């Protein structure tokens, strides 16, 4: 498939998009928290793949390379958003930001249980967002996306021991933030 992609085979590219679009959008969503923005970032990911496939050195697997681009583009999106935020106070006052992650209701859960889960998910999401970038990426890929430490290391282009250290620090920081939060809430 890689050879076909490098030749510019349209069918091969369409197959790649079909295979990876949901996974890329899901990864981007963990950073953007908005489905529309996640799709926009995912589109940028596939355009980058289209532009750069001829330069893909095959020193990692194709999926690892795709996830690496997804993470890079997602972090770029967050940096751009931070710059815009300085001038975007009005948007938030008018409620134009869509930052809420909706947890789907399970068929047998009660409304108050669903609300509690939604609130917990939001607290967790905000705590993850407050982590430094490299810890955020490691914990997102590991905990939200379910990648193994080896897969996370390949995507982040680092060693397994570095990922283990990042995850340890991320979980420790998350624990501190959540502890402070619940200490004030309860």
């Amino acid at each position: 498939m890689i050879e076909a992609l490098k030749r510019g085979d349209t069918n091969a590219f369409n197959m790649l998009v079909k295979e990876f679009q949901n996974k890329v959008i899901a990864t981007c969503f963990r950073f953007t928290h908005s489905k529309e923005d996640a799709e926009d970032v995912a589109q940028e990911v596939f355009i980058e793949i289209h532009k750069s496939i001829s330069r893909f050195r095959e020193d990692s697997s194709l999926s690892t390379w795709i996830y690496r681009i997804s993470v890079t583009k997602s972090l770029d999106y967050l940096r751009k958003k931070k710059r815009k935020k300085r001038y975007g106070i009005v948007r938030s006052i008018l409620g134009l930001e869509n930052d809420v992650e909706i947890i789907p209701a399970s068929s047998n859960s009660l409304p108050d249980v669903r609300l509690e889960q939604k609130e917990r998910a939001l607290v967790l999401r905000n705590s993850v967002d407050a982590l430094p970038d490299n810890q955020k990426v490691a914990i997102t890929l590991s905990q939200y996306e379910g990648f193994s430490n080896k897969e996370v290391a390949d995507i982040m282009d680092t060693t397994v021991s570095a990922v283990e250290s990042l995850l340890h620090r991320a979980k420790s920081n998350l624990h501190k933030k959540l502890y402070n939060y619940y200490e004030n809430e309860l």
Partner: protein
Amino acid sequence: MKRKEQIEQEIQKTMSCFKNAKKIEAGPFFSARLQAKINTYETNKNRSWGKIFTMEYLQPALLLVFLLANILTATLIIGNNNAESLSRTEILKKLAEEYSFQQEEYSLLTFSE
């Protein structure tokens, strides 16, 4: 101690939300929108003007040229404005001299009893 245990329980419940995170799927028009963007990119890539603007090493050079052109234009405009205002001042002085508006020469307007 009980409070600490309670907090730890809340933390564990919250951390379990990682497993229950929402699954996201592509919208129905994702592929179509992507294809349109790629077509636009390919069209711009093939145009000669488009080629110039997509060549990354030329972009900073072109930006510099535009900046210099703007600075030069602004300098010329400001310089012209100064030249015009000087000539206006000179014109006003000449008018004042011609119509004798200077105080020493108000001989017609002064009178003595």
